[in-house]
């Protein structure tokens, strides 16, 4: 081994230890994750794609629901970085799909309303990547949790699922309300429309019938002779 100066040796040793410490710290800290919950409008004949960079081995969940519009259905497609289709469903109202990322890269999922000619839809999706980021920076996570803290953690998880159920309930209620309001306007227009049609048709019938028996008949018989 060639001889190094003392300063160089120190720098090299510091670099080596710093690297190890960084690796240790990053190994302790779980991969940062999170959830993205977005409700967006999808116009007719449109396709909207979302992308996310995911590291290998992360467990991800994609959940979507159509809230308003038409028959409340949408096409959904999820692709991995190489373009392989992991999930593909046509005209679905609601679905949930869990997968583990097999490779690093950009995953893409698209919602398509291309089959619809004039209804635009409102779509909600929740894309959960990995675990939620921890409340505390890494230093405290290495020690064990006390009983109080673990009770707090389990309450937190239970409340998260309560909020999750609430969100689903809110979406179903929004969907039901959208249908009810549609029905209400349709009933209003239909009532007025039918009243007008009835009046027009019955008055027209009477005048048409009268016209069959009117004096103009004499002109038509002359044509035959």
């Amino acid at each position, binding site marked *: 081994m060639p001889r190094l100066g003392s300063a160089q040796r120190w720098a090299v040793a510091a670099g*080596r230890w710093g*690297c190890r410490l960084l690796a240790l710290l990053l190994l302790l800290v779980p991969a940062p994750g999170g959830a993205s919950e977005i409700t967006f409008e999808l116009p007719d004949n449109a396709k909207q794609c979302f992308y*996310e960079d995911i590291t290998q081995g992360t467990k991800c969940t994609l959940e979507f629901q159509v809230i308003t519009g038409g028959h409340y259905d949408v096409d959904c497609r999820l692709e991995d970085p190489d373009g392989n289709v992991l999930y593909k469903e046509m005209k679905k109202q609601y679905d949930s799909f869990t997968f583990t990322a097999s490779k690093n890269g950009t995953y893409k999922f698209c919602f398509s309303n291309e089959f619809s000619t004039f209804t635009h839809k409102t779509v909600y999706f929740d*894309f959960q990547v990995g675990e939620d980021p921890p409340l505390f920076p890494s230093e405290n996570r290495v020690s064990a949790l006390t009983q*109080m803290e673990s009770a*707090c953690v389990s309450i937190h998880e239970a409340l998260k699922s309560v909020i999750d159920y609430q969100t689903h309930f809110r979406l179903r209620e929004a969907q039901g309300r959208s249908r*009810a309001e549609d029905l209400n306007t349709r009933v209003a227009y239909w*009532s007025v429309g039918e009243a007008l049609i009835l009046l027009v048709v019955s008055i027209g019938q009477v005048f048409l019938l009268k016209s069959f028996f009117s004096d103009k008949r004499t002109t038509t018989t002359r044509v035959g002779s």
Partner: protein
Amino acid sequence: MAAGRSLWVFGPWPGAGLGRVVRTLLLLLWLASRGRALYFHIGETEKKCFIEEIPDETMVIGNYRTQLYDKQREEYQPATPGLGMFVEVKDPEDKVILARQYGSEGRFTFTSHTPGEHQICLHSNSTKFSLFAGGMLRVHLDIQVGEHANDYAEIAAKDKLSELQLRVRQLVEQVEQIQKEQNYQRWREERFRQTSESTNQRVLWWSILQTLILVAIGVWQMRHLKSFFEAKKLV
């Protein structure tokens, strides 16, 4: 000396070269995790709208970051400083509560004062067509609502809370959010019930009216035709 220098590049001891590779990988991992958010592409004049249905007095924080496609390097680079995004937020009554222009990287916050569907719309403010050159703008977006919008590190520092106190504070915030949502749910269910009852009423009155119209029209038709045939001496 040349031999010494080449050894220095690869490291004078076994495993040191690997250390450099590992360091680069770790740096890349850190960089990748920094920008962790969903992203989508937006055209030049396109306006993308997102809807948040939230109870009142709820804070919403949105973070976005834009990138422009660089044709020469064939990758996405952070956008030029001149390119900004115009953010517009409308409340359930279509009243604008936030309409501001932010730079290529921004953070917008608003608190709802009425419960309901708030609409957040984003579009770029670019006026020069050549800037996009037919490409798309990549927008990284992250919207946090209610309890998720809280910055617990800041709260812990400001109120000097211990670990346990911070966890309990988080639970309290979560429960408050659940409570607000339940209240909002009750208000919405009432609206839904009103709509259904209005439909019910309309259908009921319409059926009665339709029967009356039919009977009246029938009577009028017969009387009118009878008088017409009597005048024509056919009856």
